[in-house]
């Protein structure tokens, strides 16, 4: 964006005042401060990134993505590549509704499912229809946009939270419907098995354009890549179009937008059905990859994942969302084994400590204190209560050996660890409220407690509950630290 007309230097305040001045909007006055927001080593990177023209940003994203399947095994392409792409596409569509237009759509995943089921019905042995993709995809997109329009219709009178609850209910209704639509009586048709119920619709055809089948993982990957690039280009164009600017105005202040004679209801409906169309399109592609439409795939779990991606990337940011998708899909895949989970967990704790504790002397004191504390506790325990150290850390290697000499591993640990988990959550809420000295002192036993619970309880359920607990905690922590998301546009709400 540097090759536009050069902006004149902003006038310096006459008396060097920092605060807002009379006749000048506070938010406008703080714009320089917001631009100065990058710190430390991230700053040159972020500034270089911001200077890059759009085509350059896009190329920087495409080239590694295009090379990725050539240098890695097919299993990795499937596990990391395809799902990252599908989630990124979904998050980009959601970004249009939530990030651009500011509508909190919690039924978004239902449109994804709607697209998947529509495609599955049109191209599977279920009704013995085998449409070609070039015919089925447009139908899916149009149908989803229409459904989005219909759902949006009663919502158009609703502000913020009512819309959220209505769409959330719509999502639930969708799951309930597809789970039961194999055994209910439809008007005019009578009993027919529309969705296969909880068994879903198996054996969906692979994508086939004009008779050419895309069944191979790598072919699907490149198709998705093309779809993503198209959607990103489209989003860039929409964002600065008349409609895109109107959406952002709507997001910032619907009342003011309406006063500026913007057709608020029409804009909302448009945002809603465009998001639904992108979701439906993604659903159609997803169902050909998964080869079956199953009701469980379109539930709240996925919704939360997509929101996590969008929030991590930042509301309204397009490239940020692609990075968010990469992080959110690859981290849980990496967490699947203990050997990977441990470095990630300790790495995150260390980074959080480094970022929050200043000066460095205090940080060194906390870390040193933590190590000393562990050895002291371990020594006391092995002298008086040997039962507490009879267990073993999971895994092997030098770090597990270190843990065996430093952390407590009681036998029959479950009940104790469960009680301590509750205690830990309480302590995490209480400790930050204390005065600074106590906070620093108590941080040491708190960290020890966190590591105890992690090593003795959470690490065993790393693929199930723990993963989602960490996701939930991450959402809360991110909102507290940076409400606009990592790469989002900061925006204020005028109240």
């Amino acid at each position, binding site marked *: 964006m540097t090759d536009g007309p050069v902006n004149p230097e902003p006038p310096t305040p006459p008396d060097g005042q920092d605060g807002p001045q009379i006749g000048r909007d506070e938010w406008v006055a703080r714009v320089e401060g917001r631009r100065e927001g990058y710190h430390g080593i991230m700053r040159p990177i972020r500034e270089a990134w911001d200077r890059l023209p759009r085509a350059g940003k896009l190329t920087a994203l495409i080239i590694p993505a295009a090379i990725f399947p050539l240098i890695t095994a097919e299993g990795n392409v499937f596990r990391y590549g395809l799902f990252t792409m599908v989630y990124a596409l979904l998050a980009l569509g959601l970004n249009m509704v939530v990030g651009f237009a500011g509508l909190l759509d919690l039924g978004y995943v239902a449109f994804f499912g709607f697209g998947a089921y529509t495609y599955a019905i049109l191209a599977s042995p279920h009704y013995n229809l085998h449409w070609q993709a070039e015919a089925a995809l447009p139908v899916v997109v149009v149908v989803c946009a229409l459904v989005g329009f219909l759902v949006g219709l009663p919502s158009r009178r609703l502000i913020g939270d009512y819309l959220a609850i209505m769409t959330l*209910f719509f999502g639930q209704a969708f799951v309930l419907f597809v789970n039961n639509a194999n055994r209910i009586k439809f008007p005019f048709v009578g009993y027919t098995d529309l969705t296969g119920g909880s068994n879903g619709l198996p054996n969906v055809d692979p994508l086939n354009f004009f008779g050419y089948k895309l069944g191979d993982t790598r072919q699907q990957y490149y198709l998705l890549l093309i779809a993503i690039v198209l959607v990103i280009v489209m989003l860039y164009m929409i964002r600065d179009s008349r409609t895109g600017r109107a959406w952002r105005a709507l997001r910032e202040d619907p009342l003011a937008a309406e006063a500026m004679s913007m057709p608020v209801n029409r804009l909302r409906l448009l945002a809603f059905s465009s998001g639904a169309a992108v979701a439906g399109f993604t659903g159609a592609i997803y169902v050909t990859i998964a080869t079956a439409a199953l009701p469980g795939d379109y539930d709240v779990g996925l919704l939360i994942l997509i929101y996590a991606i969008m929030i991590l990337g930042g509301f309204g940011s397009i490239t940020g969302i692609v990075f968010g998708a990469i992080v959110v899909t690859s981290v849980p895949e990496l967490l699947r084994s203990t050997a990977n989970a441990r470095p990630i967990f300790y790495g995150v704790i260390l980074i959080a400590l480094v970022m929050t504790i200043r000066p460095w002397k205090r940080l060194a004191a906390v870390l040193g204190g933590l190590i000393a504390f562990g050895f002291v506790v371990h020594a006391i325990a092995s002298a008086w209560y040997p039962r507490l150290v009879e267990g073993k850390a999971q895994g092997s290697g030098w770090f597990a050996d270190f843990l065996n000499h430093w952390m407590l591993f009681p036998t029959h640990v479950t009940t104790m660890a469960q009680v301590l*988990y509750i205690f830990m959550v309480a302590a995490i809420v209480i400790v930050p409220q204390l005065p600074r000295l106590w906070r620093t002192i108590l941080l040491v036993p708190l960290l020890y407690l966190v590591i105890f619970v992690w090593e003795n309880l959470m690490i065993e359920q790393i693929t199930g*509950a723990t993963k989602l607990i960490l996701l*939930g905690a991450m959402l809360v922590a991110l909102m507290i630290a940076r409400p*606009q998301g990592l790469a989002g546009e900061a925006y*204020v709400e005028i109240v």
Partner: protein
Amino acid sequence: MDWSLFLNLTVSGLTLGAMYALIALGYSMVYGILKLLNFAHGDVFMVGAYIGWFVLHGLGGPLGTDIAPDLVLLLMFVGAMLGCGVLGVGIERFAYRPLRKAPRIAPLISALGVSIFLQNSALLIFGAAFRDYDTYHFVGVKTFQVGNLFISGPELLTIGAAIGLMIALTLFVDRSRTGKAMRSTSYDREAASMMGIDVDRVIAITFFIGSALAGAAGVMWGLVFGQIYNYMGFIVGLKAFTAAVVGGIGSIPGAMVGGFIVGLAEAYSTGYLPQGSIFANLYVFALLILVILIKPSGLFGQAAITKA
């Protein structure tokens, strides 16, 4: 007209409605003050059900309590209400208070995060198996019969206790000094703080009361349906929120009436509407849309001039 079916559906509708109303009160009170949709509220209800279970089993289980069952029941309610109240205050302090000045969407997402966190923490420490209250052996199978109407002990207890709690809440909000502070904070937070009301304290009290009511509803749910599990808070919370919207969000009598309306609607649609046992939730959803279309502010809500 089959009066027996109608009466018994009414009883189960009122039982459901009493629980929805208690949960809806928490949603409505918090919304009235913070304009925040507290997604985690349904999961607080779930935690309440678990606390009740642990109190019951800590005192010897449904079969072997040393003290009178009535006292055990009382202790279950007190334990769940206190525990959930403290939990609610903790959630507010940790996840919502830092976000008072953030854009509206930020606390909503924070609430979503708390909700996932609570659900899966319960999965982690309580496991995925259903926990059984075993009401059958605990408070007995006594069923009261009036003509064709059957009402079980837990149902009677739920309706009675819920109405008692609602009366207590109404008195508290209407008569006490703190209740007055709550009403004025909900009316205009900024003006209230200028009048010397400690807004933070009022918000904490609101969260405590709302969550305590949800905890009581959790114990009732366990007693009436016998089984509890870690994801039960989600859909119940959703329907309770519907109740709050139907009654007019922010209004305390609205939440009570809305709860009973939603409970009765669910029970009647199970009994009378086509495929009602499968799609009762869909019919509740349709009711919500209908109410929103006809009177967006709900039955008892005031039409507000919306800004931002």
